[in-house]
């Protein structure tokens, strides 16, 4: 087991961990904005880690260059998509969730 294998295992495990936390947040959080908060940040970091890990596993070639391109593209696209959805939700009148005591 050399250095690239260890790096690959670490990056893929980190990607799967952040995907899992984002999914738990999406399932357990109480309202739309907090669910978006969980998936928006968690998925972006997890996609980046997984793609870098797969690029390390592939080695130095044209395919790994394309994988790095996908990583850069997702790092630009995912926050923008999250921003667009949250803006649409806010403009259409969704209210943020408050604790029961503050409601009254």
């Amino acid at each position, binding site marked *: 087991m050399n250095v690239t294998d260890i790096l690959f295992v670490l990056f893929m495990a980190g990607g799967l961990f952040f995907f899992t936390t984002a999914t738990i947040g999406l399932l357990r959080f109480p309202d739309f904005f907090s669910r978006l908060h969980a998936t928006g940040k968690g998925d972006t970091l997890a996609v980046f880690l997984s793609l870098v890990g797969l690029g390390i596993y592939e080695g130095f070639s044209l395919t790994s260059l394309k994988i790095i391109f996908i990583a850069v*593209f997702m790092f*630009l*696209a995912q926050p*923008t998509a999250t*921003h*667009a959805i949250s*803006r649409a939700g806010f403009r259409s009148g969704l209210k943020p969730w408050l604790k029961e005591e503050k409601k009254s």
Partner: protein
Amino acid sequence: MIQKSDDIIIKTLARILVPFIQIYALYVIMHGHYSPGGGFQGGVILAASIILLMITHGLKDTQKRMSEKTVAILSSSGVLIYAGIGVVCLILAGNYLDYSKLAKLLHVAPAHARSLGILGIEIGVGLAVMAVMFSVFFDISRGEVSQEDEDE
């Protein structure tokens, strides 16, 4: 009618991304015989880039870049390239789309002529698919306008 988005983040992202998406679509069209893709898929990606421009920058700004007349000319020229290469093969005493007969015209080996013929066909298909797909989207968004005008 599709309005211009008043959000600077989405507009800046579209302005940065659209040229790269179009270059990638040209790559997909050109590499059709080695990797997945080809004329149809590359044309769809080209149309997706223009639809992204239309979603973010509105109908009017897109019409300045790509008017209805340009779309009509592009779609018919794509079909003309496809049918024209086939008919040229017929004239050179081959079957329809028999590319190896193009070797006499281009002065190359028959195998090379077959590769060049497939490339020409894919460019034609890509142009036609891009123009037709964009014109369908264009007609849908213009139909919305006329309905609103009738209401007022």
